[in-house]
């Protein structure tokens, strides 16, 4: 069955022409050879492969990414909204300080940046490249703060691939908010690549909320130059399967990275986060926290690798994984990992798997709060620090809708 599945599916994908035809040919070949990642791949060991197989059974979404970008001639707004609406189009209004990259620039970018993860078979990326025919790129310039909203909502039984590159130039500052929504059995495949230039600041929020048997594979590639700051708050809720792969490289060290992740799962959902942070220079700083709240028979996976090679002296990195089990059938796999070859570093990591504290519930009850309320209060408290870091200013009303209902059962 499976053997028949891949090739038929792959062959059903429309063939690209132009810029991405070569990439697509390669990716298709890879998919045909390797197929669904095997359990023997450490990074996919814990993934339920049945869910992955489902991922690639849908046709590619019909109106594949017709991109319409309108320049607002006299806009004083420095904000872009990129929305992938139900007709399957990207629409965006380009604002001040944000420019669209042309094909030539994208080509240049691609030749300079191969985003391969440890040279292994990168399933997330391969799926995307095999099916995607467009890459949208932006350049962010200038000191004043800008914002970019990317909203991808889908409710058809289709595969929706997107790939976005954002080059944030020296000294500029941007908030990026990604909202990804899915229902029915939509399959999302998204790649976002962010280049954070010298002394630039990027505050990145991802609110991804799935329903029904929707699935999501997302990769985030970030390269940071000196004195840059990148912070990510990534929320995953409700996908039948979702997997975020984050790869952050501090190209020359001397940068600050904050990674926050929150997984909220119930039923038989499987939410995974795999992160790799690599310091290619000294004086780097990382603060990472990954949390999960698991109900019913859900499964949380976290693998976090921090690599501190010899060149990265005086690196300070901390990583914490906190998991809250709400049901006796939920399960957690967490593995925070450190790989260190520099001697003058301060690195630590920690992990806890626990349930809501009876002591705390009792304390709240003794103040007249009922069990349900007490649970909600504590669960909210568990999530607050991560939710608070989503750059909601980008789209207050949308964020409020999503975030308000985040923890409700």
């Amino acid at each position: 069955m499976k053997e028949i599945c891949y090739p038929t599916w792959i062959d059903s994908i429309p063939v690209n022409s132009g810029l991405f035809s070569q990439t697509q040919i390669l990716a298709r070949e890879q998919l045909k050879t390797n197929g669904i990642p095997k359990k023997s791949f450490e990074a996919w060991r814990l993934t339920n492969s049945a869910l992955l197989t489902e991922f690639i059974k849908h046709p590619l979404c019909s109106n594949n990414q017709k991109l319409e970008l309108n320049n607002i001639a006299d806009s004083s707004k420095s904000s872009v909204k990129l929305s992938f609406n139900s007709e399957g189009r990207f629409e965006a209004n380009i604002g001040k300080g944000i420019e669209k990259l042309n094909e030539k620039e994208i080509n240049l970018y691609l030749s300079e940046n191969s985003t391969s993860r440890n040279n292994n078979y990168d399933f997330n990326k391969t799926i995307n490249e095999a099916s995607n025919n467009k890459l949208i790129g932006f350049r962010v310039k200038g000191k004043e703060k800008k914002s970019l909203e990317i909203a991808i909502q889908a409710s058809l039984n289709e595969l929706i691939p997107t790939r976005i590159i954002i080059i944030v130039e020296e000294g500029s500052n941007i908030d990026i908010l990604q909202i990804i929504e899915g229902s029915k059995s939509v399959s999302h495949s998204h790649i976002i690549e962010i280049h954070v230039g010298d002394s630039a600041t990027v505050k990145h929020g991802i609110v991804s909320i799935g329903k029904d048997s929707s699935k999501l594979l997302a990769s985030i590639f970030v390269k940071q130059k000196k004195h840059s700051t990148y912070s990510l708050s990534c929320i995953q809720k409700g996908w039948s399967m979702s997997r975020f792969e984050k790869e952050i490289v501090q190209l020359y060290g001397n940068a600050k990275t904050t990674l926050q992740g929150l997984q909220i799962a119930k039923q038989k959902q499987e939410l995974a986060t795999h992160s790799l942070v690599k310091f290619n220079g000294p004086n780097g700083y990382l603060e990472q926290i990954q949390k999960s709240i698991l109900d019913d028979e859900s499964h949380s996976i976290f693998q976090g690798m921090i690599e501190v090679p010899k060149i990265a002296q005086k690196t300070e990195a901390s990583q914490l994984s906190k998991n809250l089990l709400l049901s006796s059938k939920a399960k957690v796999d967490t593995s925070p990992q450190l790989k260190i070859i520099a001697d003058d570093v301060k690195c630590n990591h920690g992990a806890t798997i626990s349930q809501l504290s009876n002591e705390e519930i009792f304390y709240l009850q003794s103040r007249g709060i009922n069990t349900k309320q007490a649970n909600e209060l504590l669960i909210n408290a568990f999530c607050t620090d991560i939710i608070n870091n989503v750059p909601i200013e980008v789209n207050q009303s949308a964020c409020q809708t999503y975030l308000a209902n985040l923890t409700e059962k």
Partner: protein
Amino acid sequence: MTKNSTVSKVLEKEYKYGFLTQVESEKIPKGINEDIIRLISEKKQEPEFLLDFRLRAYKQWKMMDEPKWADLNYPAIDYQDIIYYSAPKGIEKKKSLDEVDPEILETFDKLGIPLNEQKRLSNVAVDAVFDSVSIATTFKEKLAEDGVIFCSISEAVEEHPDLIKKYLGKVVPINDNFFAALNSAIFSDGSFVYIPKGVKCPMELSSYFRINSGDTGQFERTLIIAEERSSVSYLEGCTAPMFDTNTLHAAVVELIALDDASIKYSTVQNWYAGDKNGVGGIYNFVTKRGQCKGKRSKISWSQVETGSSITWKYPSCILQGEDSTGEFYSVALTNNKQIADTGTKMIHIGRNTKSTIISKGISAGSSKNTYRGKVHIGSKAIGAKNYSQCDSLLIGADAEANTYPYLHSKQIKSNIEHEASTSKISEDQLFYLRSRGISNEEAISMMVSGFCRDVFNELPMEFASEADSLLGLKLEGTVG
């Protein structure tokens, strides 16, 4: 900087157990095949079931691949180029110490493990293993008064075949992993301990492993059974001469603790680590596992790993009995080109099972020191608790420290807590000690000892001092 040179001075104590004993050995031909296995079994006059055990293991082993996941890079081992059995001549049918080659007795004397009646340690019973065979076991008779059986595993096969049949390969199945399968096929000797119901073993038991031949692998097998309400503390030490070839050591240790029993297993591993450039040294690929089978049983592993060119070792606990406890306390020091990949597995199956993991890694030179551990809380382990703490100390800019914990929980009523840190020797702490008149070298020693304190505290008294001197450090006042 002067600081670094002092640090390396602290760490570069000469390997003082590197001498070679000139003794006539009887070796069998190189390589492994069914005939070799039959030959070993025949030499040891083993019963049919054991030969069968070996042959089954060999069949499994042939189908298995060497594990690749442990980040270990070493030249391929030619398993047909190893001698799987080597015994000093005339030792096969030993009756008393008088028949043992004096050279060998002297070897153990030099290693600080005198076997003679007059000289031997008063409160520690020793099983001395030289290459593939057990040379002597002291205090056997005295222990027998309490019903404690302490002997070589070969003797146990002969005298207590029922116990061997019942327990051998039950905790570490023959096909558990590549090296365990290899061991199961060709293990030569090792120690056997049986503590009957209700007996607290009156003295420390100890096995001392000595590899003497350069081309011989050592494949010992240890089996410890603690019956209900019994307890035992077992120590293990190991050394080898300096050869510029690599010698394979693939041991299997199985522990079984029944209701209310407790086993404490301590290791000071000081196999030859190879020279500064990583030439020679022991490949130490060991499978150690304990089964807390009974309610309220307890198995505690403590280890100080300083030797071997490569160590691959994860002493584990299967916490099956309700309220059982598993512990793992480890210090691993690597220097020069050594590689240590060590940690533990705590498999929580029963209710209210508890485990503690304390791991201290010190990597110096261009060595690589990895903690790899797994905590698994199964769906029935209501009330299970784990606490892990893994700290690494880096000395020198080329040393590597990795921490790879894998935590898995399927049980809401359980708690896992893991903490880890990696840092270098703190300049401020160093200055504080020096400002009180303590020399740089001694201050570093103190700090490294302090770093390992939580683990040293778990070692039996006799070992704490050895562990300390092994690290080339001075531990004040713990042992009078």
